């Protein structure tokens, strides 16, 4: 069987890649995709533990995560579209309306 350590390592790596993507990229959509990567890494961890602990609760949780991720993506994209209409750009470092 697949050792738990490998699964967790993979999950951690994908999560880290997602974090880097959020921090490094300028394009809002790519940042959003990186966030999805992070979510999926978390899902992988859940499933891995579900198998380890012989419990299906992990999988049920993954189910909910996916649902929420879907809703979140919808709303987030709507916001990005609106922002594009306002500023003609999707690059986050050109949007500083919150500047103090």
């Amino acid at each position, binding site marked *: 069987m697949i050792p738990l350590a490998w699964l967790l390592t993979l999950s951690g790596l994908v999560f880290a890649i997602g974090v880097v993507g959020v921090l490094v990229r300028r394009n809002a959509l790519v940042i959003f995709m990186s966030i999805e990567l992070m979510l999926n890494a978390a899902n992988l961890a859940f499933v891995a533990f579900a198998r380890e602990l012989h419990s299906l609760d992990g999988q049920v949780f993954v189910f909910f995560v996916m649902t929420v991720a879907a809703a979140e993506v919808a709303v987030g994209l709507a916001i990005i579209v609106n922002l594009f209409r306002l500023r003609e750009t999707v690059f986050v*470092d050109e949007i500083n309306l919150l500047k*103090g």
Partner: protein
Amino acid sequence: MLTGALRLWLIPGLPLAAVLVNLAVGHRLGRRGVGWLACGAVGLSFLAALRAVLILAARPAADRFLVETAYTWIRVGDFTANVSFLLDPLSAVMILVVTGVGFLIHVYSTGYMAHDPDVRRFFLYLNLFMFAMLTLVLADNFLLMFVGWEGVGLCSYLLIGFWYARPSAAEAGKKAFVVNRIGDFGFILGMLVLFTASGTLQFGRLFADAPHVLTGATVTAATLLLFLGATGKSAQLPLHTWLPDAMEGPTPVSALIHAATMVTAGVYLVARSHVLFQLAPVSLGVVAWVGALTALFAATIGLAQNDIKRVLAYSTISQLGYMFLACGVGVFGAGIFHLMTHAFFKALLFLGAGSVIHALSDEQDMRRMGGLAPRLPWTHFTMLVATLAIAGIPPFAGFFSKDEILAGAFGARPVLWALGLVGAALTAFYMFRLYFLTFRGRPRLTEHAEQHLHESPPSMIAPLFVLAVLSVIGGFVGPPFVKGGHPFARWLAPVFGGEAGAPAREPAPSAEAILMIVSVLVAAAGILAAWHFYLRDTAAAGRLRERLAGVHRVLFHKYWVDELYDAIAVTPIYRVALWCWRFWDTRIVDGAVNGIAVVVELASGALRLFQTGFVGNYALALALGVAAVILSAFFGVQAFVIVAGVMLLLALAAVLLHFLRALA
């Protein structure tokens, strides 16, 4: 009436009650009501004092020593200082003089201040002064006495500057208070020395312990410091400069405070502490010399002044010098005797001068008076009595008291007697100069004064009469040549011991008789000289002044003492104060306060750079926080320290980003 509790607290308490009533409802009482309130309070206080003294007199001589504690004030370990009142023959004399003369002056004030809009405030201050003065003379410990001491100083300031809208009055009030303060400094230090050495400030205990507990050096230091306080309050050299300027206040104020009562507080202090002074012959010598020199010094200045009240002011300084001279040579009783008679005739002189000023519509310059005798008969008569008294002509009161002092001085040190004698001659001269210039000779009045000339109302004349009577008969309690001491001395004997203090060498009766004749002759000579220069041949005065122009200038400018003090003390202190304001207050204190605001502004300006508005930067910070939290789970708090360092780097990076973006 004479039985029952002593109730000494009534004596200062009644004027205090009047103050409180005045504060509360004074504005509703009207002018007459306020006058009644004030005079009534002092009058009742006088009756209470009289009753207390009669109770005291009913006891045998050795037993005349009563203490009444009104309120336990301070009790710390072994040290007690209560609001306690001491009634012995000395304080009995003082309270009778203060309340009696005070009452007469209060009555006079109702007439004198009748047209002043601020009558209520006037009587408020006057009653407050009575309260403080009575506390001072009735106190049974130095601390309570000092409370009264400060109180009279305050009231003096308030009353001198009563017409505060007048700059000269305000300045005079300030000057009085500041000069007094220098004296008070000495008083406080003296108290501290006494307390440190003996552990108590209560008169009874302190004076009983003094011979055993206090060393010579200690008691000399303490008494000299106390005398410094007395100098300030009683306007002796070198702290005399405030008294002439204090004439800016209303004339009743000058009469009460600067003639009869407050300025005598210094003499009372020395007399009360006579036990200490007698243990320190050096201090007694200082007291005597200061007194004698001041007497002469002030008399010389009085010769050249033209303002009627100034002449009286310098005369007061001079007479106080005599009282201190008496204490200095050991005849404390004579000093107190002179205090009493001086209160009578000096108050009368001031009130009479006030009457003249009032009649002439506020004219105070003697060069514009003259020939008032037929036109102000009552004022003239009473003033003449007072002038004769102060000149030391028998059988008026001043003769007996001044003569006793001079006899004592002769017994101690003839030089002092000589100084006193010259002073007496000058006193007679300048007082009669005042009399002749004011009441006799050709009238030199202004038009305005001529038209409005009128004798004063009864409220002002009546007190003058009472004081005149006292000036005549007041000396009869102290006639000379009485075996075993005259009544006044016997009354004070329990306090001062023996014949109310004895000089070093009691002069023989025959010597005393010769001294008396000499002083009378000298006084007569002074009067004759004044008559010659100011009545018979008025031009002679002018010629003499031209011949002695230099001397006259020195005397007229009061030996330039004020200018000297101004140069060496007042101006430097003022400059320092100005520097403190310009540099310390404006630059440093204000700078610090404003600096805090500037720092806050700078800091917030710096912190503001974190709010770049770019979500990416915020995300970076978030991720950093996540890393920190994970780290801290294993490394504990040190992780946060590490993270703080990293965050600092992040901050620098953000600032860098910001500036680079601005450049790009």
